[in-house]
């Protein structure tokens, strides 16, 4: 096959003016010609032409990814070095036992890597945080959540969660990913899902958006497989398990900054508001707690949200000024909701 590429073909291609056959020519050149100095020179001229690409979108997020990789790599190297230095010292002191300590080094090495350091992300009340784990699994943590993960993953990737999170798990061949919460383990193979498991709540909820997950109880014996669009709720006080078809987008809307209340009783909605705004809400009348309502908020202030609720339900509310405890530390803002008479 003749493989003559001229400058014009290259230039046209890079500008997006080409036919499929011309694409094949370029492809052929890219695969076969390694030392064509002439073409390489032409490409280099083109390369220099791009030097004032000022109006490109910001690439800073890529830099952060690179930085992250570099730091991870450095940490790994440091750890390797310090173990080595430690054993060298041991060997120097115990020269007769050099052979034994060396074999000890090799035999204990695998367990050294499993007994590794854990990192923890703590989200302050009223905030939401996006995270990226060492295996490229990403997601969001909601207000007050806590995520523990190892510095380095083994083939069984495992993290621990308290609170609410949305996971986008990176699929890896022969490597499963488990999210442990207080009362269950969620085993996944590359998928997107929302978990809500707050320590002070009886119910743990998992909503699957894509893929497949397997949910196993830690103390109670249940083992369920979840399909996209399904929600599983486990109440560990009543030891009851519920499976329901839902719209998964509602449950992950918070990752885009939406607070969605979907036909929920005020009691439950108040818990969401407490976490969302980092406040404490007390509902003074029992009858109000069962009042259901539906709303979606974005960027509204606490006051605006309460005003909206007061418009659609017979309530009055009061936001108290923040008090101090005996140590002079500011307490959470208090909201009191009462039945309107």
């Amino acid at each position, binding site marked *: 096959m003749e493989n003559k590429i001229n400058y014009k073909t290259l230039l*046209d*291609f*890079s*500008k*997006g*003016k*080409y*036919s*499929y*056959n*011309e*694409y094949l020519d*370029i*492809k052929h050149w*890219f*695969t076969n010609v390694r030392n064509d100095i002439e073409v*390489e020179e032409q*490409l*280099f001229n*083109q*390369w*220099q032409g*791009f*030097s004032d*690409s*000022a109006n*490109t979108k910001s*690439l800073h997020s*890529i*830099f952060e*990814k*690179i*930085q992250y*990789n*570099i730091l991870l790599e450095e940490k790994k190297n440091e750890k390797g070095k310090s173990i080595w230095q430690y054993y060298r010292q041991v060997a120097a002191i115990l020269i007769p036992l050099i052979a034994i300590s060396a074999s000890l080094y090799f035999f204990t090495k695998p367990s050294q890597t499993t007994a590794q350091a854990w990192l923890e992300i703590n989200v302050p009340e009223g905030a939401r945080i996006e995270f990226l784990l060492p295996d490229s699994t990403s997601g969001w943590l909601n207000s007050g959540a806590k995520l523990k993960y190892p510095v380095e993953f083994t083939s069984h990737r495992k993290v621990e969660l308290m609170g609410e999170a949305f996971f986008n798990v990176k699929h890896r061949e022969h490597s499963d990913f488990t999210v442990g919460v207080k009362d269950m383990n969620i085993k996944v193979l590359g998928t997107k899902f929302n978990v809500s498991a707050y320590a002070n709540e009886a119910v743990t909820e998992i909503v699957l958006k894509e*893929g497949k997950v397997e949910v196993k109880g830690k103390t109670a014996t249940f083992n369920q497989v979840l*399909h*996209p669009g399904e929600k599983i709720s486990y109440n560990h006080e009543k030891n009851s398990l519920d499976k329901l078809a839902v719209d998964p987008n509602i449950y992950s809307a918070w990752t885009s900054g939406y607070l969605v209340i979907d036909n929920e009783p005020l009691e439950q909605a108040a818990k969401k508001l407490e976490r969302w705004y980092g406040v404490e809400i007390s509902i003074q009348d029992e009858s109000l707690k069962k009042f259901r309502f539906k709303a979606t908020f974005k960027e509204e202030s606490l006051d605006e949200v309460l005003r909206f609720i007061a418009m659609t339900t017979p309530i009055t509310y009061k936001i108290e000024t923040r008090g101090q405890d005996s140590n002079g530390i500011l307490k959470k803002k208090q909201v009191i909701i009462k039945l309107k008479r």
Partner: protein
Amino acid sequence: MKELKKGDHFAFEKIFERYSKQLFQFSLSYLKSEEAAEDIVQEVFIKIWNNRKELKTDTSFQSYLFTIALNSIRKYFNQLSRLNELKHDILFDSSGLKSDFDDRSDYQAMLDKLEELIKQMPEKRKEVFIKKKIEEKSLKEISEELNISTKTVEYHITEAMRFLKSEFDKLQIQGLIFFHLFIG
């Protein structure tokens, strides 16, 4: 460059700021995919960092960067060729004019149009279509993954192809506008 050799993170950031956009644009112009171009930027700069101790301060950094970049781009170009083949098949199947199809110089415009049309498809259909035609999954795999019957999968594929055909036919009729817009 000397600071970078010593492992200075700040110097590295400055070099990134200065050359990353050039690298991104150049990669994009050959790979035609922002995702791939971003991967190139990441890969090339990690290489530069890892090889910082071997940096020669007397030769041009531009040509050093270019050499690394070109190698990465070649590799990605090959990786993307399967995807391009698949896209070519879709375009060819949905195009009315088959005889001179491979010589039409508006190929990139058609690729862009394909991308846009896929985005316009209803959510489920788009998902099925991509799994079948781009990820090359079988009817059975898709039906299991999405929990729908193979009949439904087939239906979505047929409808998606019909949609693409009719849209490309429309463009054929308005051909002149289409050509002038993208080629002119």
